[in-house]
């Protein structure tokens, strides 16, 4: 295993669904000789793309879990994480970005910057991942890479500059002009593997010169040498220009844009050159851990293989080789036989086999050094756990995990399925922090929770395919919440005398709404009306009450409880009595605090040809949606709306049938909002009916 840290690139490939990133990855693997034949997504040969290792991914033509692989290009080692495109799986994207040093943002030359690209871009910003863009599908009808560059600027705020211009578009796409070398590149051979370099055709010369000037102009902001060369009218060497673009890219001040067609094998090799030339090596990226011993003080990690280990488990997989834990080593060296500590639970773990992954095949290695991505075998941990050397107490910053917004009841068909189901659920919830599962104590049903219909759908399918667990599913349920809207006082006494020592506790105070926290408890008791030792019991009692509203039984949020008086009894008061008193007090005040139901509101973006704009708006409007706006994008128009999740079930089918299948939409959680009175009444009725049928 070669170990020149300067020549490592850990990159991700992120984009909107269907913009061709899996196809692109396939081509990259082919040109870097990791695979010897090209199989297409939804290909006729039935093999499927290499990175789509899950059966289901092959069938649906989408990438669900990110698979990791590595390849070599021009003496550089590139670790690639292929990331899913659908918004329901963004936790995978987030986790990938967390461990990456750079990314290729793939955009469709026709669709341009679509809603999911905006989400992915926000995530890249959050983790400060430098990126280069690749405008794919230049062979498609309607392709216009410069329109997409304009959108990168206007919609995403990138300082996007073309590194190439296309030689022909749509079905005349032949190659690209390299604006740094000022040469025309053509891609010959059955799979575009032979690069033919020629002079720029006459008709593209002027455009190439103008675009090169734009590139030099943008890059000069990051290099004094380049500015000097421009002012002194010296020749601008490729090295000088690349160095300036690279500096700008690493600062996220510039986004170099490459273009081509993965499917038609055009211009993938120059993109790989771009990855090695412009994206950072691990030591050029600042990674910060938190020191648990110093009140989570940030510590900058050094990409040094000789320092103590700091590594992050960013993905778990249950594959043909047992449990696989994907890790990124930030500092030190994780070697076979070494001992590492899981910082979350303090457990010491002995490292068994260490491997590098190539989709679902593995390549065993002796060790993984700082800067590398690889996998460990047989280590019990959860996604997001930090592993360190013994004696240090650092944790990688926790990853942002959104809360689930939808749930589904699942029932196994038989005993065998029951066993398989629990095994599968255990695995899935470890792999994916946005996927949660629990048993409803009242109905005894197993409930799964996630980020959208498709998210849960995929897990149900995976249960069947990978674990042979046949399950039937109920109707999806929305994660409603309750909150209060006004202050209400309580003064409640819990008194019970049933022989032996009794129970006594009195609590007085008030509830009031708060907007920036789920629950706040404040003790304003002076003079010991409630003895100090019972205060935690009071808090516990109120907290328990928050789990389920007294009437509709949805979780309660946004409540501040203040206690200011009470009474106790020297014999009959106990923790239990005060917990019960708190529950009683909460119940007493809650209904007077005017509770309301809140529902999850989703940000929905529909992309449709302009001729279907009217019907699409109508569909959104019928579903209690509030249309925020409509955006004209030439061949497409996108409509942004805020929609209640409850109204979005089955929307994809209706949308398809109303637009001849030409529109698509993405949906992500935006916020919670109070449901209108008429809907609240309906929900209350449904809850009552469900309770009746459960009884």
């Amino acid at each position, binding site marked *: 295993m070669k170990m020149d840290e300067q020549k490592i690139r850990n990159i991700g490939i992120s984009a909107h669904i269907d913009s061709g990133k899996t196809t692109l990855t396939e081509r990259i693997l082919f040109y870097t000789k990791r695979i010897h034949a090209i199989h297409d997504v939804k290909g006729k040969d039935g093999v499927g793309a290499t990175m789509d290792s899950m059966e289901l991914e092959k069938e649906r033509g989408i990438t669900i879990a990110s698979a990791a692989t590595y390849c070599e290009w021009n003496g550089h080692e590139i670790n690639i994480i292929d990331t899913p495109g659908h918004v329901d799986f963004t936790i995978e994207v987030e986790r990938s970005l967390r461990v990456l040093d750079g990314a290729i943002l793939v955009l469709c030359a026709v669709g341009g910057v679509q809603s999911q690209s905006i989400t992915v871009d926000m995530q890249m910003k959050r983790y400060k991942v430098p990126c280069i863009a690749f405008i794919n599908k230049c062979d498609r009808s309607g392709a216009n890479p410069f329109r997409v560059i304009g959108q990168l600027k*206007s*919609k995403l705020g990138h300082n996007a500059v073309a590194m190439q211009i296309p030689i022909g578009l749509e079905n005349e796409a032949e190659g690209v002009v390299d604006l740094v070398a000022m040469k025309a590149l053509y891609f010959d051979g059955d799979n575009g593997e032979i690069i033919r370099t020629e002079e720029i055709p006459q008709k593209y010369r002027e455009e190439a010169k103008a675009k090169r000037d734009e590139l030099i102009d943008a890059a000069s902001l990051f290099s004094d040498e380049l500015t000097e060369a421009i002012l002194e009218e010296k020749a601008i060497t490729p090295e000088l220009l690349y160095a300036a673009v690279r500096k700008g890219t690493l600062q996220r001040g510039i986004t170099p844009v490459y273009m081509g067609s993965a499917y038609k094998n055009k211009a993938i090799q120059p993109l790989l050159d771009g990855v090695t030339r412009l994206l950072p090596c691990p030591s050029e990226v600042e990674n910060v851990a938190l020191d648990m011993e110093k009140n989570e003080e940030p510590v900058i990690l050094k990409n040094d293989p000789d320092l103590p280990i700091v590594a992050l488990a960013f993905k778990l997989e249950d594959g043909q080789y047992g449990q696989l834990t994907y890790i990124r080593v930030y500092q030190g060296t994780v070697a076979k036989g070494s001992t590492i500590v899981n910082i979350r639970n303090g457990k010491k773990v002995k490292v068994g086999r260490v491997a590098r992954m190539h989709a679902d095949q593995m390549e065993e290695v002796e060790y993984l050094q700082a800067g590398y991505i690889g996998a460990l075998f047989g280590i019990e941990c959860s996604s997001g756990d930090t592993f360190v050397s013994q004696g240090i107490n650092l944790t990688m910053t926790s990853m942002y995990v959104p809360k689930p917004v939808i749930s589904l009841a699942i029932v196994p068909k038989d005993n065998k399925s029951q066993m398989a189901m629990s095994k599968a659920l255990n695995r899935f919830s470890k792999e994916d922090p946005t996927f949660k599962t629990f048993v409803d104590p009242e109905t005894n049903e197993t409930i799964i929770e996630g980020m959208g219909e498709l998210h849960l759908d995929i897990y149900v399918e995976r249960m069947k395919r990978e674990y042979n667990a046949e399950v039937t599913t109920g109707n999806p349920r929305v994660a409603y919440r309750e909150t209060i809207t006004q202050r209400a006082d309580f003064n409640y006494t819990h008194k019970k005398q049933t022989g032996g020592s009794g129970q006594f506790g009195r609590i007085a105070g008030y509830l009031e709404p708060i*907007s920036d926290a789920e629950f706040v408890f404040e003790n304003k008791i002076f003079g010991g009306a409630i003895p100090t030792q019972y205060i935690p019991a009071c808090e516990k009692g109120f907290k328990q009450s928050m789990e389920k509203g007294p009437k509709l039984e949805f979780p309660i949020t946004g409540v501040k409880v203040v206690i200011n008086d009470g009474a106790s009894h020297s014999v009959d008061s106990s923790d239990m009595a005060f917990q019960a008193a708190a529950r009683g007090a909460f119940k007493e005040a809650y209904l007077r605090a005017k509770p309301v139901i809140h529902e999850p509101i989703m940000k929905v973006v529909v992309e449709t040809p302009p001729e279907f*704009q*009217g019907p699409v708006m109508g569909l959104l*409007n019928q579903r209690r949606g509030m249309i925020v*706006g409509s955006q*004209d994008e*030439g061949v497409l128009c996108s409509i942004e709306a805020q929609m209640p999740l409850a109204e979005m079930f089955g929307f994809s089918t209706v949308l398809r049938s109303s637009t001849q299948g030409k529109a698509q939409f993405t949906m992500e959680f935006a916020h919670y*909002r109070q449901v209108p009175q008429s809907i609240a009444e309906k929900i209350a009725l449904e809850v009552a009916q469900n309770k009746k049928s459960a009884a």
Partner: protein
Amino acid sequence: MLKKEIKYRNPLTNLGYEHEDILPNGGFGAILAHAGVGKTALLVQIALNTMIREESALHLSLQDAVSKVDVWYQELFQNIAGKFSDAEAQEYWDKIQPYRFIMTFRVESFSAANFEERLTDLMQQNIFKPHTVLIDGLKFDEAGRGQMVLLKELAKKYSMRVWFTVHEHRNEAPAENGLPVSFLHVADLFDVMVQLEAKGDEVYINSLKGKSSSAKPHTLRLDPATMLIKSVK
């Protein structure tokens, strides 16, 4: 309370435009300024003052994406709602937001006919019927008088009031009456005109046409950081 605050801070009524609609049915209003002085911010304040009266404002942008326009509203609203609690501000925003619709066009594809087509899409399905339309980024020299006359007819047909931003070019000397030369050919179609002017670190708003009360000042000072009125000069 927040409604009062927005109303109180309305730069146009403070400048002496007393009728709450300011423009008549089918009327045109213009906000003239150089680039970067705050035309969009003032346009958004006009929209907010429409929304608080529970009248619908259609914001039509020919330069920015929906999300960017939305950020303008969020910022202006937050600046005005600064002294109110988050919950109160959010509740009021949720109440008035349905009275706003953002529509964007690419400059080259905008025309009165295209606009009418999109507008009827919205109105026929009862999704949105604008009371006031705010058009940001129209290039008057390129649009020509013909398009403006068609827009005027459209405004009358659907009883709308239309506000425009007018970009004054720094390298273009104004006409004798102080208006940009590129705007002169359509200036007569406008009922109200106000001008934003940056002087040093300060921004002033001047009334040029259509003022109903002469008692109010002719010029107001705006806070360049928030674009809200600062004091009466």
